[in-house]
């Protein structure tokens, strides 16, 4: 059995289907269905499926790629619908005027509410966006003067494209699916490009994304706003299809349908949105006996998918037809960033308290170009907090972090990263769904013009650490030592002037430690200033030119490494008073 599968797997790459085969067959089937088999009613269902596909493509951007479970998507859909409905039926505006407004109004609302709401973590965000949706629904039902109240507004005009009034049936279906194709292509290109990669990193690991120079807040807001535009477009098309607008377009079932389509189709995939929409809009037709309660089918489909096939239908298809391995790029050194000599980073009187505890209490240090500084101290002495403060992961209460005359203290992590500071984390976090090459290339997304370029530079960084053979492997399931190596490569790919390492030798064997020490020396030799937090004195002391020891947030010792073992204060801090 297993051998059969393996044999088939080995054969699969030789069955060279063109790259577009899957999509091409899908489009052909849809077109053939619309032309040959669809009744007027069937075309109507297909048109509505197109509307939902467009909304779901937008939802893939904010939820699938961005990882934010926005329950306001249905509200944006409804607002787009109402914009078209009110302007079209009450004010007599045509499609050329109403459609842009239907995109613009949700966009503006998304920008307005997005700024505060996007800062919230997962379920806070989901329920806050649900709150927004409920407020919008309340407003629509209770302002009859504007929206027609609970009855809604009839008489919404049809679509007029360049003077052509699009009739119902096949032409309307074609126009709606034309918008789906346009929106799908745009989203697909965005998802595969630098922006999409950056967004997925923000989803998987916002902390690391910030320290790799990515503007986490800006990326999330852009995704939220763009998704609102898609929802608004879908809402407008929905109203043109139905010719009336009523509060139903703002009710939770729309949101549920879009969420279900995205999850069942496959999170984050444009093809998933389209596949899910076509399938789920036709499901109730096949389950006619359920009558109006087709949403039960949605609920069951959603529950079954999330439990049994977390990557949705496109995930299942991927497993049946695995993608051919992409050849590795040719490694290329990123353009040299000139690292000045002398003191690169000066920390002055840095202070941070949590509750009543002073975690870091007036720490000063200077990192010189091309040197390695060791940061030691007992557990809880504030070492990691200091690294967090310098890299912007936490904001200091006081003090300065000076780099080239600029005070970076309290700045956003991406600003600090762009100033030339890179770091690794004590608990290594890599995006589990990505390959090693993609994970390292994330460090170059903010700088390089294309993914290909970023991956070439990433391979160069992996090569420098003797880890190029890892490039094609998935991050998931990588042993601890290799994970640390990959994370170091990611930091190195940024060609930082200052590199902060939080316990890089933890969990390594003696041989691996020696190898790591060699790599760190080589990095310092290029002019980078290193700050290494470490417990392993046997590893650190021969490596560091200078050592700073913290105790309860305060500097206890600063000087050459030889002095550490004999300094009475350090010995007392490590071994306890009177030892």
């Amino acid at each position, binding site marked *: 059995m297993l051998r059969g599968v393996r044999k088939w797997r080995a054969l699969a790459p030789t069955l060279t289907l063109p790259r577009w085969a899957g999509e091409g067959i899908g489009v052909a089937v849809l077109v053939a269905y619309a032309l040959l088999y669809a009744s007027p009613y069937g075309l109507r269902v297909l048109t509505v499926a197109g509307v939902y596909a467009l909304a779901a493509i937008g939802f893939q951007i904010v939820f699938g790629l961005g990882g934010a479970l926005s329950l306001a998507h249905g509200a944006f859909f409804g607002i787009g619908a109402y914009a078209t409905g009110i302007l079209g039926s009450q004010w007599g505006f045509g499609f050329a005027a109403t459609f842009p407004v239907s995109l613009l109004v949700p966009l503006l609302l998304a920008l307005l509410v997005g700024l505060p709401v996007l800062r919230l973590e997962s379920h806070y965000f*989901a*329920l806050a966006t649900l709150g927004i949706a409920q*407020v919008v629904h*309340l407003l629509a039902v209770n302002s009859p003067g504007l929206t027609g109240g609970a009855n809604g507004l009839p008489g919404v005009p049809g679509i007029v494209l360049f003077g052509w009034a699009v009739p119902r049936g096949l032409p309307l279906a074609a126009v709606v699916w034309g918008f789906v194709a346009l929106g799908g292509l745009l989203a697909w290109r965005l998802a595969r490009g630098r922006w999409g990669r950056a967004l997925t990193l923000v989803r998987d690991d916002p902390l690391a994304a910030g320290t790799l120079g990515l503007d986490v807040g800006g990326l999330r807001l852009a995704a939220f706003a763009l998704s609102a535009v898609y929802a608004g477009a879908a809402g407008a098309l929905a109203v043109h299809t139905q010719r009336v607008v009523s509060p139903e377009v703002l009710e939770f079932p729309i949101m549920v349908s879009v*969420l279900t389509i995205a999850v069942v189709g496959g999170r984050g995939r444009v093809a998933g949105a389209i596949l899910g929409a076509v399938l789920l809009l036709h499901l109730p037709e096949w389950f006619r006996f359920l009558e109006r309660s087709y949403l039960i089918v949605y*609920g*069951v489909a959603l529950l079954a998918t999330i*439990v049994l096939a977390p990557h949705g239908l496109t995930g299942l298809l991927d497993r049946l037809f695995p993608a051919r391995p992409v050849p590795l790029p040719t490694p290329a050194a990123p353009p040299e960033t000139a690292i000045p000599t002398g003191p690169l980073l000066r920390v002055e009187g840095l202070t941070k308290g949590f509750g009543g505890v002073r975690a870091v209490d007036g720490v000063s240090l200077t990192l010189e170009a091309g040197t390695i500084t060791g940061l030691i101290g007992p557990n809880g002495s504030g070492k990691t907090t200091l690294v967090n403060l310098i890299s912007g992961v936490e904001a200091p209460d006081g003090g300065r972090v000076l780099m080239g005359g600029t005070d970076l203290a309290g700045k956003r992590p991406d600003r600090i990263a762009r100033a030339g500071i890179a770091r690794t984390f004590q608990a290594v976090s890599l995006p589990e769904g990505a390959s090693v090459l993609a994970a390292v290339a994330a460090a170059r997304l903010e700088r390089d013009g294309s993914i290909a370029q970023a991956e070439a530079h990433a391979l160069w960084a992996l090569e420098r650490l003797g880890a190029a053979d890892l490039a094609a492997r998935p991050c998931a399931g990588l042993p601890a030592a290799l994970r640390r190596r990959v994370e170091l490569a990611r930091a190195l790919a940024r060609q930082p002037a200052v590199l902060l390492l939080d316990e890089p030798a933890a969990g390594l064997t003696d041989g691996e430690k020696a190898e790591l020490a060699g790599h760190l020396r080589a990095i310092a030799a290029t002019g980078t200033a290193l700050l290494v937090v470490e417990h392993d004195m046997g590893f650190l002391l021969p490596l560091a030119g200078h050592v700073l020891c913290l105790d309860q947030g305060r500097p206890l010792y600063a000087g050459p490494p030889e002095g550490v073992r004999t300094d009475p204060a350090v010995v007392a801090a490590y071994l306890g008073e009177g030892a």
Partner: protein
Amino acid sequence: MITLQLLVNGLALGAAYALVALGFVLVLNATAAVNFAQGDLVMAGGLLAVALAPHLPAYLPLPGLLLLPVVLVLMAGLGLLLAAAAYLPLRRRPPVAVFISTIAAGIILQNGASVLFGPEPRAAPPLLSGGTLDIGGLVVAEQSLAIIAVAALLIAGQQWLFGRTQLGRRLRATAQDPEMARACGVPVTAMILVTFALGTAFAGAAGLLLANRYFVTPTAGGDLILKAYIAVTIGGWGSVPGAVAGALLIALFEVGVSSVLSYPVALGLLYATLLVILVARPQGLFGEAARRRA
């Protein structure tokens, strides 16, 4: 007098909301999962009472109160089902998976109810006779007092269970740190099942209590989950007494504003308050420690 009357009405509504929020927060604490179906479970409890009422022998008094134990037991069973279908298979996956699976469970409940009962609002039997009491000029619906009494008893029972019993100690250990609890020999999965059963039973009781005064429709859950959420947010995310206090607060607000302005305005203001609290103080008005757990 009118303000006193509103106060009693508000307290009755708040007592029921408190049960909803309490069930929500118990599950949240034990599993770190947001049970989005909690509002629909309230609806299910109300409709269960509607469905069961005709089967009570006509000569028995206090129809609503007699139904309470039946609703509690059946809803606890539904809670076990919910945990088995929507939580246990997903416990090793990111929290958003459980969030979506409970949304799905809510959709199934909501639309199942709409198939079985139709979209019309329905009333469950009154807890007591349905009359009013005159306490020194203050006319109070017996129903309100009964709601307050039943909810208070259930909440006190929960406090006793968690505070004084061996089972309660294990439930609390699970809520505090499942890994640690498992290491100490607590059957964590069983405790999570008990928590789901308890949380769902509370939702069902709230449904029974509310369904006479406020009627019940299949889509009533959407607003209720948000109110439970607001109560929990006001009370400090994860705090049991905070959830009860938050529920009383929003109910008084709702009844007060509804009487002066209108129910939609009260609802709109509540949601607006939720947004303001979330943005300004996401850890809740009175809580800090719970934030990291959630």
